[in-house]
């Protein structure tokens, strides 16, 4: 995984502050692969059931916290709610790593 321990801690803290302490985070995409370089940070955040409005607000909040902590870089955030059967969610769990 191409994230430093500090970056991982900052990501987990940002998720907890935005979505609550029960939120869990997975890293997926190219950053999981140690042989690659650079690239976006693809994250999946698993949350409790939230309304669409609240989920979007929380996502914007987390992106802001990540920007202030990790600096300005491309971060893609997928929000997974209970019973979310989208392919992107399945792929993130199958190929990603829990932070």
């Amino acid at each position, binding site marked *: 995984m191409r994230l430093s321990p500090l970056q991982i801690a900052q990501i987990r803290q940002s998720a907890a502050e935005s979505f609550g302490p029960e939120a869990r985070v997975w890293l997926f995409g190219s950053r999981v692969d140690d042989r690659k370089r650079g690239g976006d940070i693809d994250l999946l955040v698993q949350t409790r059931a939230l*309304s*669409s*409005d609240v*989920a*979007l*607000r929380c*996502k*914007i909040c987390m*992106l*802001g916290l990540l*920007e202030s902590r990790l600096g300005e870089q491309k971060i893609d955030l997928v929000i997974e709610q209970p019973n979310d059967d*989208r392919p992107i969610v399945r792929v993130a769990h199958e190929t990603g790593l829990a932070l």
Partner: protein
Amino acid sequence: MKQTPERLALAHAYSTCLGHAEALQEALVDLHQRDLHELEWNKLAKEDRRLLDQFAYRYTRIQDDMGTRLMPAILCALEEDIAAMPVVDRLNRLEQLGWLPSAAEWSELRRIRNAFAHDYPETPAERHAQWRLAIAAAEQVLTILDGFATHMHTVLPG
């Protein structure tokens, strides 16, 4: 007040943003009248798609032009040296000078705009939420541009 290249550039950027603002305001009035229901996002009528396209185009353009053209032009007209200044420092300087109510608010508006432009929500409820947030953000952007008007006479010849 003497005309300078910096003031000419500012006048042009400001005029462009005012044009976007007028069209965006029209779209907002129509959107509020239309008041699309969550379920209607499943199948939009042609007129609704046109209205949403007008909103989306003007909303993203006004924010981009304010951030990348108007704000730098304001600072240049105020004879600020911004060549090596990171974006966040430019926003903080505009806040310090009293032009921008909050640099942090503008940064959040930019994140909302980026999410609006790049994300493709799958469900009607998510699409509805995204549009509601973008509409509220667009209204904030227009308020910020209105605030610039009260300062513009200090840097532009009348």
